[in-house]
């Protein structure tokens, strides 16, 4: 069984689980939250469509070598800082971010820099903030969370340098 399938099963089982709890509270609770969720879905689909279908084009015009070049080997804290900027600027989905990280690692990029890149990209990739977080969440919260997250790729790189891993 593939990991993706397993995750889908857990996901829908969770939906069924909370749906059952809602049903126990009464059929009205179930129907009103079903309707609420469906309305959310319908509203979000155009944004997701633009994001998913559009991000392929954005990723296609940004050459990966540019980003991996920034992660250069033995670049120290300057390398970490550029890795954080590169992580924030990397477009596209999980394949793009991790692939660039893997290429950088193979090309001799320092593990702390690659770590900082992956964590910065996971925490506040700009395109993801715009496409995924802002449609679903209050805008004020999204920017606040991104700003608060800025120190943490640096902290992770510092830990990695201190313990000499990965």
């Amino acid at each position, binding site marked *: 069984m593939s*990991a*993706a399938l397993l*995750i889908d099963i857990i*996901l829908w089982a*969770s*939906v069924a689980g*909370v*749906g059952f*709890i*809602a049903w126990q*509270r009464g*059929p*009205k609770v179930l*129907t*009103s*939250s079903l309707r*609420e969720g*469906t309305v*959310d*879905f319908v*509203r*979000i*689909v155009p944004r*997701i*469509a*633009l*994001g*998913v*279908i*559009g*991000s*392929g*084009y*954005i990723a*296609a*015009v940004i050459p990966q070598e540019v980003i991996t070049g920034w992660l250069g080997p033995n670049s120290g804290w300057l390398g970490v800082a550029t890795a954080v900027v590169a992580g924030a600027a990397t477009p596209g989905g*999980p*394949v793009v971010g*991790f692939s660039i*990280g*893997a290429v950088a690692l193979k090309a001799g990029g320092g593990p702390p820099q*690659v*770590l900082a890149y992956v*964590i910065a990209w996971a*925490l506040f990739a700009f*395109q993801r903030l715009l496409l*995924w*977080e*802002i*449609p*679903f969440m*209050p*805008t004020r919260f999204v920017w606040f*969370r991104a700003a*608060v997250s800025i120190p*943490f790729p640096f*902290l*992770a790189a510092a830990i*990695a340098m201190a313990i000499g*891993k990965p």
Partner: protein
Amino acid sequence: MSELPLNDPAQASEAAEDEPRPGRARRPVGWSMIAIGVLVAVSATLVWRRDGVNGVLEILTHDLMLFGGILPRVLAGCLLGAFIAEILPHDKVSRALGPNSGLKGLLIGAAFGAILPGGPFTAYPVASALLAVGADFGATIAMVVSWTLIGYGRAVAWELPIMGVDFTLWRIVISLPLPILAGTLGRFVYVRMYPARDEGKREGESE
């Protein structure tokens, strides 16, 4: 009076006075969508000039398939968010995850984020629901950061195969303290940025 469409027969039978769920108002298409739309249009044009129509179509087909695969999960995420917002008791959430929930609230938020299944289409609607029912910025930040960095969904599906086991495991180990630290920093900054709001809540000035 309800303005919501009641075309569901089960719904119509009840003299429903649906009160809209608080705090989840959505803006119409905003500047971020326009910015992305322009960026996509420019990028697609560049791809077209470089690779011709075939290049454009190739990316379009690939992304349409990706989109089709994601849609059911988006639906699952929206339903999960809606159910959670409906069944979680507001008073308990604000006690467990609210501004005064302390370290325990951050830990609960982080643990919740780590076990939450699915991708961004699950995590963000659920986080939004938590905010709406009384969680504070700190606990919600702990949850989102924990989902991003420690959650197994992305690590298992993408990071392990692409980055390798060694890097992924160390990355997760190093990330373990980050959700709590981010939540703590978030709370620290929040009460200084919005002191009046916080005070008003605490003193119950709504009367």
